[in-house]
């Protein structure tokens, strides 16, 4: 066994995410009209399998990267871990940890003030009003909105909008963070600040992270393990160096 591995092995943190034999399929029956169902034959429910028999686990505080071509099921898998849809078979066990998919401005209402939107969005993310209130000042400070925080959202510029959205997501963090592409928002300065904050969240040992990205160099630098999804199946999982190398050669062929 190599030295690098033995360091991780001796610490043995608990498993935070356990995904077992997960299959996710969509029934393709969008937008039936009455005319369809009455006058036309039902062509059976066509089923599209997006994720097939995927199993893996992530230890607490670790970072798992997911790579794969477009349409290989990465986002679907991420969303089902985030609970947006349940898998058709198999199980996802988060061992009681809270989870959120990092997305900006969920449930924002244009007519309400920034402050009110922090509460609404936070509650939707699963935080109690009390928890949100405790971090309210921190969020407002990070967002750099100043007095605008009590103005309705429709008066915000798009930059201010995304600053608020990012601050909520970054400061109301859950145990498990799911990231679909690392992003930065706002102007040049806030962009740097938000990118740094995101990296801080990711590498922080408190959080377990699963991230989807196409940025191979960044993944190589920060991930503990990389999973390569190909056509919904696990093609390879293991140390970033070897998986990413194979993936890179596959993609450039």
């Amino acid at each position, binding site marked *: 066994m190599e030295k690098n591995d033995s360091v991780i092995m001796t610490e043995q943190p608990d498993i935070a995410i356990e995904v077992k034999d997960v299959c996710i399929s*969509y029934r*393709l029956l969008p937008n039936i009209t009455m005319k369809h169902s009455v006058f036309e034959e039902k062509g059976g429910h066509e089923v599209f399998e997006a994720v097939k028999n995927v199993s893996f686990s992530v230890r607490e505080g670790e970072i798992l990267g997911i790579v794969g071509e477009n349409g290989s099921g990465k986002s679907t898998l991420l969303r089902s871990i*985030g609970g947006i849809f349940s898998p058709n078979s198999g199980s996802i066990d988060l061992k009681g940890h809270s989870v959120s998919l990092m997305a900006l401005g969920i*449930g924002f209402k244009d007519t309400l003030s920034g402050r009110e939107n922090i509460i609404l969005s936070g509650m939707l993310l699963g935080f109690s*009003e009390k928890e949100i209130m405790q971090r309210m000042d921190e969020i407002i400070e990070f967002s750099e909105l100043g007095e605008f925080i009590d103005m309705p959202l429709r008066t915000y510029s798009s930059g201010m909008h995304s600053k608020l959205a990012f601050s909520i997501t970054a400061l109301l963090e859950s145990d498990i963070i799911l990231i679909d592409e690392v992003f930065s928002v706002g102007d040049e300065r806030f962009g740097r600040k938000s990118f740094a904050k995101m990296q801080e969240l990711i590498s922080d040992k408190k959080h377990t992270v699963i991230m989807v990205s196409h940025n191979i160099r960044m993944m190589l630098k920060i991930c503990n393990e990389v999973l390569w999804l190909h056509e919904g199946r696990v093609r390879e999982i293991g140390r970033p160096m070897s998986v990413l190398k194979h993936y890179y050669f596959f993609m450039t062929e």
Partner: protein
Amino acid sequence: MRFIQDTRSFYRDMRKYYRYALRLAKADLETEVINSYLDWLWWLLEPLGMMLVYIFIYGVVFNVIEEYFSVFIFIGLTMWSFFAGNIMESIFTVRKNSGIISRIYIPKYILLFSRMLVNGFKMLISFGIVALMMLIYRIPVSVHILYIIPILFDLFLITFACGTILLHYGVFVRDLSYVTNIALRMMMYLSGIFYAVGKRIPPPYGEIMEKANPIAWLLAAARDALIYKTAVSWELLVLWAVIGSLILLFGISLIYRNENSYMRSI
């Protein structure tokens, strides 16, 4: 087995999300106030205006007069608008909230529930006007007035129950809103907003139509309790509550089983 499991999830999720539903309802009400010109006055003006239309058409043109006719119509309209408004909204619940649904998990009926709180609040304001009108007309009241509480409970339950089922089919069936619109119009005329079903339709059909249609029955019951000092049948109140609960559980179960495929259809 499945039903028991879904009932448990329903109880758990309602506890987890009702605060959000309340907050969202409050936000929606505030938004409506900010967006309209006469603010919340519209919540009073709209039903009052509708009442005038119906009084003119039925009271003057067709000469159908019930005792305390304006209050009679106003109660009917208030309760009917609550039912019909929620039913129409339920169809678009998922489509309208795709921004939330595609990014975070929330039991979809919570969004409907929140809208029902909004419409329920408006209904209560309308009932405030009913109380005012009852004072103006000096309508004598009795203790039977308290029946209005279980009556409104039943109305809420039955509306929620029908709403969950339409919420589900609204995702997949694009033209459901047209069909529902026609069905609602039909139901409106059958429910006796501006006439007494049990009295105007010859027996035995009048009574059958009133008792078999929960909305018609609830309207008649509300009028009995509020303006005619009449007791309401407990048996029917309980029966409709039970039927409402069963349909609700069916709808909730339908949503739980299918909500993971909603995302792909919108």
